[in-house]
């Protein structure tokens, strides 16, 4: 059953081939047997999952119309608040935090009667590209357990790649859906900023954070998006736009689709074998009738520096609430208020989180604000303008998701900047608020490579259509890592 896609599982439940309880037991069993190896889950909610599976079966048995995901098991990144279930953000700070409310994304899946297997591992507060910053230990890449799964949604990506869950929710602030999707050989979509509610999604950098799905195929992403995307009056940055059925246009042809390939994405930093795989994928799309042209995004090189000012600046304020006063970790026997703050935060946060809080506070401080924060915001507008101009000539922008395939644990540990550069191709879309995708397009040295698709605002349906058409003529997305049986 675990080899089936979300769409196939939905069909199997509908036809009565298997029940949700059977399906849920199957995945729970896999998690129990295999997750010691991958560490993809922080919390497994087995009994709750079986209860909701039984309820889903009953709903289907009643003959009422049910949502396609009714009874389908999924996993939530541990950044989405789940009522009554610990939500840690992979931080010691929230190791004891049990929210009294659900994220809107979680509510949406509840409304669809999907089954939640558990909460997936991640980089602490979504800060990282390797999953090495988790308080609960790193996630192993199912393709090579000596390598990172990418981050920050590494747990969700590894869970899907290892067939511990057919699909999972994730978030993307600077590539955190697309990079782990690429490194784990699965598909992932970061929607347009404002498409998926951020309510109950623990904030890293509010102007960049966006929830989205990880799954094996574009079709599965479309099914997930039908649940995740919604207008939410509780999130002021959420857009009140009608949510389309993302599966409707999957089978449309792509002949005449104008594809732009930015020359800046094929620079010296790109692994030549990754480049080859990406070029081959683009040629495949040409065969399907897409018109490919080279384009330029001249300010691409500034996206990483701009991001590493804006994201930490926002994070420095977003993480101030973790002060030991109302919830979360509190240091033992504080001598006074200052001691409470200092030790609580010193003990509760890991190094990468502290580094970013410090950088962010520095960029916002008196005398540095204009040189850093303001300048970065100006750069952000230039980067957005690059894309606006590009989308006057083309419909989609394609390139590599990341410069290299999965790298070994510890290989970039003492060099944060080298780690940050792994997100060089993904970050610009967050700064511009655009939707971005990664789908498998080949292998380098036995490790998966991701093809990135960037669309115009709210063009997710068209992007999924393009990816689905590609997946009809290729089988990279069907490949499974060895050792997951």
């Amino acid at each position: 059953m675990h080899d089936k896609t979300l769409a196939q599982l939905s069909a199997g439940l509908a036809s009565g081939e298997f029940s949700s309880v059977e399906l849920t037991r199957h995945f729970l069993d896999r998690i129990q047997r295999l997750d010691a190896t991958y560490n993809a889950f922080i919390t497994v909610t087995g009994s709750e999952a079986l209860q909701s599976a039984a309820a889903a079966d009953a709903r289907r048995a009643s003959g009422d119309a049910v949502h396609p995901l009714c009874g389908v098991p999924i996993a939530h990144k541990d950044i989405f608040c789940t009522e009554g279930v610990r939500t840690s953000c992979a931080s010691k700070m929230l190791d004891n935090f049990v929210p009294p409310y659900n994220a809107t994304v979680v509510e949406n899946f509840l409304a669809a009667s999907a089954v939640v297997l558990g909460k997936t591992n991640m980089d602490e507060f979504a800060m990282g590209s390797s999953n090495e910053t988790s308080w609960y230990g790193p996630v192993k890449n199912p393709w090579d357990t000596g390598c990172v799964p990418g981050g920050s949604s590494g747990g969700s990506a590894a869970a899907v790649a290892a067939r511990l869950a057919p699909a999972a929710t994730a978030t993307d602030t600077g590539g955190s859906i697309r990079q782990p999707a690429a490194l784990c050989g699965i598909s992932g979509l970061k929607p347009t900023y404002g498409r998926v509610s951020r309510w109950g999604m623990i904030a890293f950098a509010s102007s960049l954070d966006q929830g989205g799905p990880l799954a094996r195929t574009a079709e599965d992403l479309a099914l997930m998006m039908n649940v995740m995307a919604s207008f939410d009056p509780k999130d002021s940055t959420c857009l009140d736009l009608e949510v389309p059925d993302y599966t409707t246009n999957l089978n449309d042809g792509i002949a005449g689709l104008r594809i732009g390939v930015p020359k800046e994405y094929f620079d010296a930093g790109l692994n030549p074998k990754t480049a080859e795989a990406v070029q081959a994928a683009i040629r495949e799309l040409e065969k399907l009738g897409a018109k490919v042209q080279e384009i330029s995004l001249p300010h691409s090189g500034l996206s990483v520096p701009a991001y590493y000012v804006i994201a930490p600046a926002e994070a420095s304020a977003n993480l101030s609430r973790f002060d030991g006063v109302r919830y979360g970790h509190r240091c033992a026997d504080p001598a006074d208020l200052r001691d409470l703050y200092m030790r609580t935060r010193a003990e509760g946060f890991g190094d990468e989180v502290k580094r970013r809080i410090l950088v962010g506070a520095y960029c916002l401080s008196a005398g540095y604000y204009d040189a850093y924060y303001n300048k970065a915001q100006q750069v952000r507008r230039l980067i957005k303008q690059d894309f606006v101009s590009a989308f006057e000539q083309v419909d989609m922008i394609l390139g590599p998701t990341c410069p290299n395939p999965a790298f070994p644990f510890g290989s970039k540990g003492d060099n944060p900047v080298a780690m940050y550069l792994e997100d060089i191709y993904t970050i610009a879309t967050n700064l511009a608020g655009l939707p971005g995708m990664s789908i498998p397009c080949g292998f380098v040295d036995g490790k998966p490579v991701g093809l990135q698709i960037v669309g115009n605002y709210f063009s997710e349906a068209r992007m999924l259509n393009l990816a689905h058409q590609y997946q009809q003529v290729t089988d990279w997305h069907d490949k499974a890592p060895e050792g997951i049986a």
Partner: protein
Amino acid sequence: MSWETVIGLEVHVQLATQSKIFSGSSTAFGAEPNTQASAVDLAMPGTLPVANEQAFHYAIMFGLAVNAEIGRTSVFERKNYFYPDLPKGYQTTQLAKPIVGPGWVDIQLKDGSHKKVRIHHAHLEEDAGKSLHEDFHGMTGIDLNRAGTPLIEIVSEPDMRSAEEAVAFAKKLHSIVTSLGICDGNMSQGSMRFDVNISVRKKGEEKLGTRTETKNLNSFKFMEEAIKLEVERQIDVIEDGGKIIQETRLYNGDTKTARSMRSKEEANDYRYFPCPDLLPVVIDDATIERLRETLPELPDARQRRFVEQYGLSDYDAGILGDDAAMAHYFEAVVKVCGDAKLAANWIMGDLSARLNSEDKTLADCPVSAEHLGQMILRIKDNTISNKMAKEVLQGIWAGEGDPDTVIDRRGLKQVSDSGAIEALVADVLAANGPQVDNYRNADDAKRPKMLGFFVGQIMKASKGQANPQQVNDILLKKLTELL
């Protein structure tokens, strides 16, 4: 040496919205601690703010009332600092793009002169919670009921030159926000709080002296005391050869003393930046015009109207027209009794005295405008005398019922039956033969002064209920007959 005082105010006004500025929690005062604090107010992870439209409308109304420009694009920023009653670790406020731009108000001083005080800007922000230091034995309790209550912070230019001007400005703001209905004006509950920036300089000097800020004054009286104390302190320091240090000070109204809270050197770097959870709010012309049309009558216009419509003096109109509650009460009384002068006298006289002595406001006044109006009608139709009316007012205040009931129950009806009064007069004259003889033998010039004795006796005999005017008339007639 002659010194000039320079004062600027920062005024926090709690807006009378039903819910908080960024959450749906109630803003009502006085609930059990932390019963009006939602996940948003507690800054639980993943929660997000949604701006309260009514708070914007109230702020715009204030801007229109003080002749200000309205900020067409209004941006919330985060002001970062750690404090236990600030759950997010930052206050959501406005800095570069406030909702209300430069404006001004007119203040009237005791000598009758007027002065324009400029407003630099006013911005929307959220209130913090409260730290409770009592009852926790060496620990601090946090009550987040107040956290997220909408405020406008009004920042004046340093245009005031005395405690009197500062208090007049503060009172003017109080009357504007209460007239607009955007704040309940309850200063003892912290609905309006004043921070006063004070500096002194030698008369004729242009350059401003170093200022201090005295924070959280919550009554006009404390404000006046605190300013006078601080001005004296600053002049003493400078005249003794010292320098004023820029600092924040706290005034204690009980001990009438002030102390330094923190100096500029310890001041925080608040690292303001635009709040990414809240988009810029664009205010269009239609919204502004719609709100302008709904503006109630403002104190200045009302005072002018009271002079014209009711013939009140400037002074009476100033008092009755300044405060919205007072003005409504006054007009309601006039509506019942039709006599503005009597209504003004009773409200500003006996009623205000009683309210003051019992530390009450019109909002909790036991005498309704209708009852006061009815009582005045009874004075006008001679049912009761002015003196009796004071007793009737006591009765109404004590809850004995409407004026007619009180008059009945207390037996206060004035005797205006001329037959009865004639009989009384006759009795008194008969019982006081020697005094009547004296009257008869006195000079014409002395006689009027001698009437008082007879009037006193007659009133006593009538137990105070005889109509004094009628007594006078009848007595004079009878005595003249005896001449």
